[in-house]
């Protein structure tokens, strides 16, 4: 890995997590406020995350094992904010309905 590649890869990995956070936060806010624009923005954030993941796979010298990890994480992460949100709201609803 060259010096330039080291910095580029690191910045891509940081963006990967930042965009994942953006997806989670915007999705949560969108659901909470029932605002479609925020939910769409969250999906846009996820789209960008996928692009970053693609850049990691195509252009960085990370070992194949780590590339597989990034690719798989990105694919699975798609489901994480909706599942987390659904579980969270379900939990609160159950709590409200219990005496």
């Amino acid at each position, binding site marked *: *890995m060259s*010096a330039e590649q*080291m910095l580029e890869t*690191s910045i891509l990995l*940081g963006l990967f997590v930042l965009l994942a*956070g953006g997806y989670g936060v915007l999705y*949560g806010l969108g659901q909470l406020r029932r605002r479609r624009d925020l939910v769409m923005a969250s999906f846009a954030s996820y789209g960008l995350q996928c692009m970053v993941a693609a850049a990691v796979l195509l252009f960085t010298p990370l070992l194949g094992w780590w590339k597989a990890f990034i690719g798989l994480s990105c694919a699975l992460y798609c489901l994480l*904010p909706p599942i987390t949100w659904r579980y*969270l709201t379900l*939990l609160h609803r159950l709590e409200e309905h219990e005496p």
Partner: protein
Amino acid sequence: MYQSQRLALKYFTAAIVVFGVMVIGGLIAATDFVQPRFLYPELPFNIAKILHIDGLIVWLLTGFIGAVYWFLPGELGRETEGVRLAEIMFWILCAAVAVVFAVFVLVQYGGSDQFAMWFINQGRKYVEAPRWAAIGIVLVMLVFAYNVVFTAIRARRMTGILAVMMIDLVPLVVLYLDAFPVIENMSVDLYWWWWLVHMWVEATWEVLIGCIVALALMQLLNTPRRIVEIWLYIEVGLVLGTGILGLGHHYFWIGTPQYWLGIGGLFSAFEPLPLLGMVIHAVYDAGTQHMKTTNQPSLFWMMAEAFGNFLGGGMWGFMMTLPQINLYSHGTQWTVSHGHFAFWGAYACGVISVIYLALQKTRGAEVLESGAWKWSFALLNIGLIGMVGSLLVSGMAQAFYERAIGGSTLQAFITAQSSPWFTQGMVARLAFGVIFAVGYVWLVYDLLTIGRRRVPAPILEPA
């Protein structure tokens, strides 16, 4: 008010004072990077650095202990068992910290002998406190554990949060014993030393602050107990599942077997997950309340905790945790940037949030509000983010010039240290450090004055 809560206020006061020592130590160390002979030889860089990082550990730990003493009586409906002993230990701890810091500043170092180890400096980063003080810390932690466990036993009551906390107290105390052995083989010594540092910071402390935040959320946002407990179990499971073996991400350049690098990289790559869960939970809780509460400072600091932890621990950590990058970034200012951000987000913001909660009750303020808290919140966070950004630039320059291009030779070290990317980053860090220090002064002013003047409760419009 319970006696335990009065003791908690003393712990909070001590925490904020030592926070100040940490800030001063940090400012001196940051100035040393810009003016290398600043205060030398009276207070050299290595001593300022010790004050900075040991101050950090002490103020956070006293903040945690204070938070537990604050919440414990309310949680169990009775006075904390052995609170007088706890009070004595508090004064012993304060005296020990004062003496240790005074020895660091005035004596500074000793020979490579037993006397120096027992009375001046143990010589291991983060646990420099001399042996006598280290024994004192163990005693304080044991009494603290006794207080928690026996209060629950006497109350004949157990909650999920307390059960998690009690289990966590065992490794919290036991891991500190790792500060004692004198191992001559440096690889073996560092191998075990990282158990102490990593397992405290990325495992047991995470669990402890998780319990404290759970208790705080029930007061701050009236979040139902069952919800905070279920989230606590999930988050603790994820934190421990990823954090324990994430230990391997420290095992660079110290002679540990290579397999640790892959293990550490893999497990620490999962570490952002629980942090993201916390952020989503925080968005939900604060969002359902429309960010409205009778204690805005506490809520904002709690939100800063969730986001700061995610960014500092998750994003900053992920940038450098895969072995191919960690190989270069390890031990540079890049790591320092990650450390500052993660400690701030994961722990400092949470402790400050709990202090505001305690002040509201102590001062009987229906609504805790002031202008100063906004200033301190803004200045501290801007200062911190600025420092973290500057350190990141300097650290990347180090990894780039010194490690990746220069191959870690002495000449490469000097080249990196004189690179404008590095030096200007250090100047910027100092400037933002000053902003942070001003924020600290505002914080102290606010903590002393907030809630002393009556603020009318907001009139809530019917839905």
